């Protein structure tokens, strides 16, 4: 009996210790360090080649593509765009670029397109496969002319959660990756509202929450410190998800 009490006390002390450590600044720094170690390993183990996320055959597409996070956008502006087929929707490119852009969907569809069948992995653990079509982000960045100081791309979205609009960001390595596309078409049809109409990001080497939906534009910046709460994304700011979501 005494031994059992001792064990229970040890377990409780361990859990309390863990939560104390979890709240400390040095543990946060350690976790950030681990995140960059993983990222470094992922990039390093490619040994210089362009690392492509696995692509699948069209026949392997899952029968339904689950929508997570926001599955509809609750704003009059968005409802109006949805009602008229997004003909007046503009995708803006701003920040550290030579030529700021405001592209219509028709203009984006007129660019060179990439179609890829890829697996979408939610941070929660589930996966789904779909076929995506859209212009490569690198193509749009080339049109806009990225200025030398730009280090990150910030993705702006039409949907909001309780603490503000959704947003995400990535570094130039992921921005210029061949599989990073702005998808307007899923499984051969217009992207449905559930999955981010009219445009969503596909950033295939990272988890689902990086794949920002309902895109209104991108912004090229030097630092993420002044964007949102400075952690690089809505969930990063508000629940502490890792900015590098390749793990």
């Amino acid at each position: 009996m005494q031994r059992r009490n001792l064990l229970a006390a040890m377990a409780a002390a361990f859990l309390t210790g863990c939560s104390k450590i979890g709240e400390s600044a040095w543990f946060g720094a350690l976790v950030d360090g681990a995140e960059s170690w993983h990222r470094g390993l992922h990039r390093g183990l490619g040994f210089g080649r362009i690392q492509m996320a696995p692509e699948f055959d069209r026949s392997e597409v899952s029968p339904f593509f689950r929508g997570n996070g926001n599955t509809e956008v609750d704003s009059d502006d968005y409802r109006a765009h949805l009602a008229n087929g997004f003909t007046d929707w503009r995708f803006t490119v701003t920040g550290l670029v030579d030529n700021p852009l405001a592209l219509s969907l028709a203009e984006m569809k007129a660019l060179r397109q990439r179609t890829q069948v890829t697996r979408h992995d939610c941070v929660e653990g589930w996966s789904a496969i779909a076929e995506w079509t859209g212009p490569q982000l690198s193509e749009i960045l080339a049109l806009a002319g990225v200025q030398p100081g730009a280090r990150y791309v910030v993705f702006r979205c039409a949907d909001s959660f309780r603490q503000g609009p959704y947003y995400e960001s990535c570094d130039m390595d992921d921005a210029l990756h061949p599989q990073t596309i702005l998808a307007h078409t899923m499984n051969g049809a217009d992207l449905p509202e559930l999955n981010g109409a009219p445009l969503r990001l596909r950033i295939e080497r990272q988890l689902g929450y990086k794949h920002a939906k309902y895109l209104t534009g991108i912004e090229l910046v030097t630092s993420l410190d002044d964007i949102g709460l400075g952690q690089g994304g809505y969930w990063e700011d508000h629940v502490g998800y890792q900015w590098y979501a390749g793990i």
Partner: protein
Amino acid sequence: MATQRKRHALSTRMWHWINLVSLVILFMSGLGISNAHRRLYWGDWGFDKADAWLHVPFFPGWMTIPSTYSLAQSRDWHVLFALVFAFSLAAFMLASVLNGHFRRDLTTRLADYRPAHVWADIRAHLKLKFEHAGSKFNFLQKVAYAKVIFILLPLMIFTGMAISPGMNAAFPWLLDLLGGRQSARSIHFLCAWALVIFMIGHVLLVLLSGPLKQMRAMITGGADDAAA
């Protein structure tokens, strides 16, 4: 001989305790991550009840790190200690090849698998007789340790890597080997519980075979009776 060889080398002892801490933290934070999506699937994809082969129970707060549900914090612990776990295992393996621990203590011969020999070893275990002359570990011990060190622990690392989309791009062959991301996730979960079963058996046998002497040997090194 002036110096007697220790029962457990320093590298073995250091790894044993680092590994214990890593595994406990990885297991408990892993249960926290499991609570985020309590279904397991086979193949590349899966998200629906109908696709699942297993509905996983909700793990209560005393089993998880942190003790209140936070996928972000569970992942932080998991991602940090995954590195500690993997690199300490690699270092232990390298040291154990160099100092002869694997060759001397963990290799079995074909003759050891004769039914009569295996049966004798099982009978000795059931009678709680753990003394065995000639080598440090008996046959069942060698097989159990070798399976954990060379199969179960590496499988934890490789299935964990295969769940990571960044690693998928670096090592796409891992997914082909394991049968897809959701299969890798299922195997990761099963191996974690297999390790728990091993640990229960391991601790039980330590308790039955002179726990104080065993603990002392794993901390200070102890004296190597067999080599004396």
